[in-house]
C-alpha cells in the first residue's frame, strides 16, 4: 500500500493507505480527525471541506495520495490553542449559524476561503459561494448572517495586524 505524508493542522503526518482512499477518509480514519464530515457520495454536500494549500477543497474529491506533501487544515486546526475560536467560528456561534452541527465544519472552512478571496462579500455573493455546501437545518438565513459578520471580524483582525 502507498505511504502518504502531509502537514495537517501544522503537524507532519504520514500513513499507509489503499490507493483508492479518499483524503476525507484518511483524515477521519487514519488521523482520527472526525470534525471533517461525510454527508454524501457525489461531492455535492460540502460537509467535508478542508483547506489544501490554503484553498477550500471537498476532501471527498481528492485521493489521499494526491494530497501527498500538501499543507492541510481541518476544522480542528482553526482554534489551535483549543479555546480561542477563529473569528468565523465565533460569528457562527454569535449568529446561530448552526443547528445540528453536521454541515458546520464544511461551512466554516468554505466561508473562510470565501473571505480570503473576497474580504467584503455581499449577501448575494455569500449565497452564490455556498452553492457547494448544503445545510438542511438553518434555511441558510443565519449562515449568511454569520459569514457576513465573520468577514467583518476577519477584516478587523487583518486591519489590526497591519
Amino acid at each position, binding site marked *: 500500500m502507498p505511504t502518504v505524508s502531509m502537514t495537517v493542522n501544522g503537524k507532519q503526518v504520514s500513513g499507509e493507505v*489503499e490507493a*483508492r482512499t479518499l483524503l476525507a477518509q484518511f483524515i*477521519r480514519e487514519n488521523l482520527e*480527525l*472526525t*470534525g*471533517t*464530515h*461525510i*454527508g*454524501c*457520495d*457525489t461531492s*455535492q*454536500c460540502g*460537509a467535508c471541506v478542508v483547506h489544501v494549500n490554503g484553498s477550500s477543497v471537498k476532501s471527498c474529491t481528492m485521493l489521499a495520495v494526491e494530497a501527498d506533501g500538501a499543507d492541510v487544515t*481541518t*476544522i*480542528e486546526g*482553526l*482554534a489551535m490553542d*483549543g479555546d480561542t*475560536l477563529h473569528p468565523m*467560528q465565533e460569528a*457562527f*456561534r*454569535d449568529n*446561530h449559524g*448552526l*443547528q*445540528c*452541527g*453536521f*454541515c*458546520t*465544519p464544511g461551512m*466554516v472552512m468554505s466561508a473562510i476561503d470565501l473571505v480570503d478571496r473576497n474580504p467584503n462579500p455581499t*449577501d*448575494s455573493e*455569500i*449565497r*452564490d459561494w*455556498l*452553492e457547494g*455546501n*448544503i*445545510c*438542511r*437545518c*438553518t*434555511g*441558510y*438565513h*443565519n*449562515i*449568511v448572517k454569520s459569514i457576513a459578520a465573520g468577514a467583518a471580524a476577519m477584516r478587523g483582525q487583518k486591519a489590526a495586524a497591519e
Partner: protein
Amino acid sequence: MSATGIGASVKRKEDFRFLTGRGNYTDDINQPGQTYAYILRSSHAHAKIKKIDTADAKSAPGVLAIFTGEDMQVGSLPCGWAVNNKDGSPMNEPPHPPLAQGKVRYVGDQIAVVIAETYAQAKDAAERIVLDLEELPAVTTVDAAIAPGAPLVHDDLAPGNMCYDWEIGDEAETDAAFKGAAHVVSIDVTNNRLVPNAMEPRAAIGDYNKGTGEYTLYTTSQNPHVIRLLMGAFVLQLPEHKLRVVAPDVGGGFGSKIYHYAEEAIVTWASEKVRRPIKWTAERSESFVSDAHGRDHVTHADLALDASGKFLGLKVYTKANLGAYLSTFSTCVPTYLYATLLAGVYTTPKVYANVKSIFTNTVPVDAYRGAGRPEATYLLERLVSKAARELGMDQVEIRRKNFIPADAFPYQTPVALQYDSGDYEATLKKAMELADWNGFAARKAEAAGRGKLRGIGISTYLEACGIAPSAVVGSLGARAGLFESANVRVHPTGSVSIYTGSHSHGQGHETTFAQLVSETLGIPIENVNIDHGDTNRIAFGMGTYGSRSLAVGGEAIMKALGKVVDKASKIAAHLMEASAEDVEFKDGKFTVAGTDKEVDFGTVALTAYVPHNYPHETLEPGLEENAFYDPMNFTYPGGCHICEVEIDPDTGVTKVVNMTAVDDVGRVINPMIVEGQIHGGLAQGIGQALLENCEYDENGQLLSGSFMDYCMPRADNFPGFQATTESTLCAHNSLGVKGCGEVGAIGSPPAVINAVLDALADKGVTDISMPATSHKVWQAIQNAQMPAAAE
C-alpha cells in the same frame, strides 16, 4: 428577565464542540476490534428470491460472515400505531423482516449483510454474492396499486394493496351541509413525495459483550429508548436491562430518525454472531433508498360555501402511499396527524374525510417534518384560495370571514381535536404589516416593468403538536404512551445535571432546557448540564418529534424542578429555623417573609449531601428528583405565512423574493433558537413547493436517488426570511409553550404555490403541482396560452 432565563436569546452551549470539530456523531465512534457491515440491497422493485449464493463471497479477503434472511429469523420490525378500517376491522399489517424473506419489495430492500475487517472489503465481497431473483411487475403510485389486477406487494396479506380504508367525521351530516350550499369548490392536489435528507447519513454500531451478556447499539436516533423497546421487545427479544441504546450527537432528523430501522437490528444481532463490534454507515445514495420518505398523498376535496363565502362543509378523499412496508409511525400520519387538522383555523361546521392507505413497491413512507399537518394545510389553503378566486372574493377576507374568533377557545372541531388557544387575526394582521401586503400592487407593477410576473400568496394555518396525551392517542390506536421523563440531580456544590428523555439533534435543548433551570433555580447557566441520548444514563424517554420537546420534555423538567424546590425549601426552613410554609424562593435565595433570614441555593445543596444539621426525621438526604409528564392535550401553534415570488415568463424561473412568517408558538424561551427553527422549516417548505421531488419510474426505479438528481435547496434559492412570533399561551401547560419545530414547513408550501398561481393568473394558469419547477412553470404558461397544443 435574567440574561440566561426564559425569554433570553442565550448563545448555544452546544456550539463550541460543533464549531471546533469535537461533535461526537455515531460514525465518529470506533470500538476496539470493530468490523464493518455492508448491506446488499435489492436493485429490483419487486422480485421473488429464488436463491442467494454467498459461498464465493464468503471466501473474499477480510470477510467474517454473511447473513441473509434465512439466517436471521427474528421478529418483524413493528408498526407503532394500529388504525382500523371504517367498518371497525383491523388494518392489514404484513410482516417487515430486517432481511428480506422470500421476496424483495422495493429498490433498497435489504437482502444480505456482509461483515468484514474493513468497509471496502465488505463492499467488494458483496459484489461476489450471486443472486437468483425472479423479477415481478411493480407498482409505485397509489392509483396503479389499487387498480384491478395490480401486482400485489404483500400477496394475500394485503388484498388490493390496501392497508386500511379509514374515515373520520360524519359523512351524512356533511352531505346534508352540501345540499344547502350556494357554491361548491373542488380541488385535486398531490402532496409530493420527499426525501428527508438529514445531512448526517444514518449509522449504527452493534456491540455484544460476551462477558456481561449486554448489547450496546450506537445509533442515529431521535429516540433511543423507543428503539430499545421496539428492537428489544419485538425484533430481537432482548430484555431492556441487557440492551443499551446510545444516540450521541445526531446530525439532523426531521422525522427520518424516529423509526426503528432494519440496520439497527442487523448490526446488534450480528455482533453476537461474530463476537465483534460492527459498524454500518449509510452512503448517501443508500440513504435515498433506505431512509423513510415523507408525504405522497393524492387528494380530492370539495368545499361547500354559502352565498356570502362562509364555509358550510368539507369533504376530503385521500389516497396515501405507505411504500412497501409499515414504518414505525407510518399509519398515523395520513389519519390522526392529517385528517384531524382539516378544520384548520376555520369554523367549518361539518368535515368528513376518507383515507385509503396503500402499499406500493417504494421505500416506506413515514413522518417527515410536520407529518400529516403539512398535507392538511396544503390542501386547505389551496382550496380556500381557489374558493376566493372562484367566488371573486379577496384572499384575506374569505379567511377572516371563516376564522375561529379569538374569544371562541376552547374550540371543539368536528374532527376530534379541541383547540385550547389562538388568535388567528393577530398573526394575520402582523404578517400583512411585515410583508407590506397593501404595497403589493406597486411591487407587481414595478416587476411588470422589468418583464417579471410577481405574485403574492397567503396561508393561515394551525397544527397540532406537543404530542401527545397518552390516553387519547391510546384510544386512537397508538401502541405507545407519549409522555416524557426528566431527572434533576443537584450536586453538592449546587451545580445541576438534567437527564431528559427528549433528544436534541439540532434543536438546541442543551441551551433552552438549561434556561429553564437557570430561571427556576436562579443559578448561572454554566452550572447546568443537559444530558440526553443514552438509555443507561436516562431513566426513560419517548424522544423528540412532533414539536414535543419543550411542551412535553420541558414540562417534565419543570415538574421535577418543582419537586427539587419543594424539598430544598424544607431544608432551607430547617437551616433558618422557620416553617417551610413561610419560606420563599426567588433568584436562587431562600428567605423567610418579614425577617432578614436568607440562605442560598448552594448552601441548601451542600446541606443535602453533608447533612450534619438536617431534618433527618422528615427528610432523606440528597437532592435529586424524577418526574414524568403526560400532557392534557395537544398544543396548537398556528400563524400566517405570506410569500412573494417573481417569475420570468420566458424561462419559468421562479424566485421567492419575500417570505414572511408570523407564528404563534406559545411562550418563547429562546427567541434566537425559535427563529432558527422557523427559518429551517421555511426552507424545507419552500423546497417542497419549488424544488424537491422524489420520483420513481413505472418499474420502481428511483430516479431521484442522489444529490445530483434530487434538488436539495441551496442558499441561493432563498431570500432572507422575515420570521417572528406573535403568541398566545398554551392553556394547559405550566410554561404556556406550544412548539416551533414544524410550523415553518407546515405553513409555507401553500403560501408559495398560492403566490405562483397569483403570478400566473393573468396568463390564465389556474393550477400547478408541487414542486413548481422552472420547467413546470414555463410549461404551464405555454399550455395556458396554447390550449390546443397542450391537448
